[in-house]
C-alpha cells in the first residue's frame, strides 16, 4: 500500500532527523557563528535529504551524507553576507613556533563570541576544514572526500586556517556596535 510505505518512510526519516539534528545544528553554528543561520542550514539540509530519502535510507551513514550536504550548502551558497576573504600566503619558516603561539592564543580565549567572530573572518573552506577536522573529528581523507580536494590540500588548508584563526584572535577586534537596522538579502525564485 502506497500510504503505508509513505508513512513508514516518514517515521524513519523523522527518527533520522531527531538523531542528527543536534550535531548538524552545532556544525552549522560553528560554520556560521549564528544560531538562526544554523537552523536555516539544517532545515535546508533536511529538505534535501528528504528529497532523496528513498536512496539515503539505504546508506550506511545517512548522517554523514547530511553533514556533507550542510557543509556544501555553506561552501556553495551565494556569498551573501560577506566577501570571500583572501587566503593567507603559506606560512613561512618556524612552523612549530608559530603553532605553539597559536595554541597559546586559543588556550587564552575567554569570550566565545570573539572566537565565533574570528571564525567568521576565515574563508569558508578554511572554516569547513577546521570544523570537520576538529569538531566532527574526521580524518584528513574524509575531509578531502567531502570537499572534493586532495589530502594534501586539506593538510595545507588546515595549517593556514589555524594560523589565520590565531592571527585574527590576536590582532583583530570584532566590531563594537551593530547596525541599527537589520538587512536581509534574499532572492525570490
Amino acid at each position, binding site marked *: 500500500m502506497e500510504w503505508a510505505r509513505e508513512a513508514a518512510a516518514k517515521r524513519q*526519516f523523522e527518527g533520522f532527523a531527531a538523531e542528527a539534528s543536534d550535531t548538524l545544528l552545532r556544525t552549522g553554528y560553528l560554520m556560521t557563528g549564528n544560531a538562526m543561520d544554523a537552523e536555516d542550514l539544517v532545515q535546508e539540509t533536511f529538505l534535501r535529504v528528504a528529497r532523496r530519502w528513498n536512496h539515503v535510507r539505504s546508506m550506511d551513514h545517512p548522517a554523514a551524507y547530511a553533514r556533507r550536504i550542510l557543509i556544501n550548502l555553506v561552501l556553495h551558497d551565494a556569498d551573501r553576507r560577506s566577501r570571500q576573504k583572501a587566503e593567507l600566503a603559506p606560512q613561512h619558516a618556524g612552523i612549530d613556533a608559530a603553532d605553539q603561539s597559536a595554541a597559546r592564543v586559543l588556550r587564552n580565549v575567554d569570550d566565545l563570541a570573539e572566537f565565533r567572530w574570528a571564525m567568521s573572518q576565515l574563508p569558508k573552506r578554511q572554516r569547513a576544514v577546521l570544523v570537520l577536522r576538529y569538531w566532527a573529528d574526521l580524518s584528513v581523507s574524509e575531509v578531502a572526500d567531502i570537499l572534493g580536494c586532495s589530502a594534501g590540500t586539506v593538510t595545507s588548508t588546515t595549517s593556514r586556517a589555524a594560523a589565520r584563526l590565531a592571527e585574527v584572535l590576536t590582532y583583530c577586534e570584532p566590531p563594537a556596535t551593530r547596525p541599527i537596522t537589520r538587512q536581509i538579502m534574499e532572492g525570490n525564485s
Partner: protein
Amino acid sequence: MPTGELEDELRRIFARAAADFESPDQARRRLLQRDYHPGRGNRRLAAGIMAGAAGVAVVLGLGLSGVFGSARHQPGHPAHVQLAAWTVVKQADGTVLVKIREFRDPAGLQRELRADGIPASVEFNPANLVGKGAWAIVHFKGNPCHEYSGGESQAQNVVTGGSPFTVGMFIHPAAIPSGAGVQFVASRNVGYASPQRDQAFDLFEWLVQPSPQCTGS
C-alpha cells in the same frame, strides 16, 4: 598539519564553542515539527522553502494561532495549506513569528501584526526611493513614519531570527519601547542580485514614532 598541541587546543575550543549553542532544544523542536515529505520528490519539497514558489507547506507547530494571507488557521486542523504570501503565528510566549513568501498584501500583514499586539507598519516596494541603501529605502518619499528617537540600541532586540523565508523572523512585542512602533520596509531591485536566484530584495525594520498611520494609535 598543525602540531599535536595546536590540534588539541583546536579540538578543545571547538567543543566549547559547539556547547555554547543557545537553545538547541527549541531549534530542534522547530526543525522536527516540519513535514519534509521524505521521498516525495523535488518540486513539492522545494516549495516549502523557496520564497515565491507555489505549492504546499506545513504549518509551524509553534504557536496558538496562525494567519495565512487573509485566512486564519484553525489549530488542530490538517497541517497542509496552500501557501499564502506570508504567515503570522503568535506563540505562547507572545512572540510573533513571521514568514514571508511573496511581497503581497502589506496592508493585510500590517493588520494581522497589529491584531497580535505589534504596533507595526508594513510597506512593500515603496515608490520614489531616494537612492539606494538602507536609509534611502526607509526614508522613501512619502513615508509617514519617522524614526523613534533613542531606540537605536533597542531596535535590534525587537526582531530576531534568520531569513523570513525559511525559519522566519521573530518579533518580540515586549522589546518594543513604550510609545514606539516598528516599521518593515521591503524593496526589490536594490542591493545586488544573487547569482543563484532571479531577484534580490532588502527587508528592513526600524523603530518608529507612534501615529495612527504607523502604529495604529
